[in-house]
Structure formats: structure tokens, C-alpha cells
């Protein structure tokens, strides 16, 4: 009787690990810009805001435009319905939900991902202003 539970427990543990390992190879949640353009479907694209390129807030249409670089280093113009998202300036990466329309990624929502590391900002990343004046 005891043995049965022991053997069963081992089988369960082993296969939980095997099942868990399967996650290592899969990342299906987010698409890339290429994929988004090919499929034309509504997808989530994760990437970074390209700070060297311009951003623009169109007050008439209440849309915000910026350029985003995805994981495959492709840059696309993104237009969001609405104002500039929270924390946009300091986000380490952004997730845009939307679809490609006429060469522009129209996002219904943009989520900003911040460095939630709960530590002070490291030396190397500090903004230009302070750096220039430091002794």
C-alpha cells in the first residue's frame, strides 16, 4: 500500500518536471512585428521605445505616435488611441496591443514595463544631465 503511493508520487514528480520543462521552449504569448504584419491579426508585440526618433501627440485626434524596436530589431511606427501612457519616458520596454494597418502599427493599448527591481538606479544608466555636471 505504502509502496503504491511512493511509486505514484515519484511518477507525478517526474512528469511535473517534464511538463514544466516544456515551457522553456515555448514563448507563444507575444508576437514580433514581422509576424504582426504577415498575419494582420491583433497581437501583442513587445519591444523598446526608440528614444532617438521622434514622438508626437496629436491633440485633435487624441493619438500618440512613437517608434518601437521589437526583439528582432525591426522598427515600426506605432500610433496609440489616447495620450502618452503612464511612465512612458522611463519604461525599459513596452507592450503594444494592436494590428498593422497601412504600414503603421495601430495600438488599442500600450503597456509600459518598468524596471521593477526595487533598487536604486544603477550608475551606468543615470540620465545625461547629472552625468555631465558630475565632477
Amino acid at each position, binding site marked *: 500500500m505504502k509502496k503504491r503511493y511512493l511509486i505514484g508520487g515519484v511518477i507525478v514528480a517526474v512528469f511535473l518536471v517534464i*511538463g514544466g520543462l516544456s*515551457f522553456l521552449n515555448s514563448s507563444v504569448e507575444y508576437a514580433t512585428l514581422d509576424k504582426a504584419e504577415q*498575419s494582420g491579426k491583433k497581437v501583442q508585440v513587445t519591444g523598446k521605445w526608440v528614444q532617438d526618433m521622434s514622438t508626437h501627440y496629436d491633440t485633435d485626434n487624441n493619438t500618440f505616435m512613437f517608434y518601437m524596436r521589437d526583439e528582432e530589431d525591426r522598427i515600426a511606427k506605432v500610433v496609440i488611441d489616447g495620450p502618452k501612457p503612464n511612465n512612458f519616458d522611463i519604461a525599459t520596454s513596452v507592450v503594444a496591443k494592436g494590428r498593422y494597418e497601412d504600414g503603421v502599427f495601430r495600438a488599442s493599448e500600450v503597456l509600459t514595463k518598468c524596471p521593477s527591481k526595487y533598487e536604486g538606479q544603477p550608475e551606468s544608466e543615470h540620465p545625461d544631465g547629472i552625468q555631465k555636471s558630475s565632477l
Partner: protein
Amino acid sequence: MLRQAFAIFAKDLASELRTRYAINALLMFVVVTLAVIMFSLVGETLSSGALTGMLWVVMFFAAMSGLSRSFVAEEERGTTMTLQLLATPMAVYLGKLLFNLLLVVALNVFIVLLFLLTMDQFTVLQPDLFWTVMLLGSLGIAAATAIIAAIIARANTKGTLFPVLSFPVLLPLLMAGISATKIAVEEPVWDNAWPELQMLASYIVVVTTVSFLLFDFVWKD
């Protein structure tokens, strides 16, 4: 034990074929659900990916409406005690699992065939992968619902409780299944689905093993 289990399976099958409680209602359920989907989609063009989601929704709810019967029927007729006197818990579980398996495989084949016939927009790029996923998904649904059905057979509100208890347990299977089906439908490469298949297989083994270990407690008063 296998012979005992098979005898119980044969009994359930004969009983079902004679009374047709589950089969007729289930077939109608599938037809009605698909009809509702078709009504609501007249004139719409949906991608195969979106239709994949719908296919799984139909499969999930069909399973939820039919698969609790194996144990609930015994409880409702009052034959639970008779079966307890006839066979070991292991044999009972295995017999019921086999019956659930047959029912869910037959049901899903019916659903998929009907789906392929009625939804012209639904095209499958990799039929072999698609059917593999359907088979694994059916196995997983049968394994998980068998033990949950045994549990809810002892409760008061059997019908409503079944999906409530099943959904969280089935969710890993549904996520992996849907994702793998999407790959089969949209992508031409079999290899992309390996993680999902691995996940499905280990899910089936885990749930079946746990069920075997715990069925004694559920079955005996």
C-alpha cells in the same frame, strides 16, 4: 483487474446503447452549439486561429455536459453499492476511465468533423499534428473528468459543480491544447508544437496517476 475493468466498461457501454441517455442529448448539444456559432458568424470572415478557439469552447462544454454521467448515473440509479460489492476500486476507475475515453473521443471526432464540414474558413495546414493534438486533448479531458465526476457524484449539486471543479484542473490542458491546435492550423512546421505536446503528455500522466492513487478515498464511504 484488466478483465474486470473491461467488463465494467462493456456494461456501461451496453447500458448507454440501451438507454441512450447521454449520446442523443450530447449529439444534439453539439449540433445546437455549432448552429448558434454559425448563426452568429453569418457574413463574418474569421481567421482559422479564432475558429480554433471556438472549436475548443465547443469541445469543453460538450465534455462538461456529458462526461459526468459515468459516475453520476450509478449514483442516481442507486447502483453505487452494487458496483462496490462487485469489483475493486481500481477496476471501477479503469472501467469508467475507458468509457469516458470512448465517449470523449467519439464526441470530439464528431465535433471536429462537423466543424470542418460547416466552417469553410477553417483550414488545417498540418492534419497529422491536428489529429494528434485532438487525440491527446481527448485523453487528457477523459482522465481529468473521470476523477472529478467521481467526486461530484457524491455531492448535492452535481450538474453545476462539475464545470466549476473541472475548469481549474483542465486549464493547463486547454491552454496547451489550444496553442498546439493553432500551430497545427496556422504554421507549416510540426516542430513548433513540441513543447505543447510534451506538456499535454505529462499532464495526462500526472492526472491519471494522481487519480489512481486517490480513487479509493472517493469511492469508499
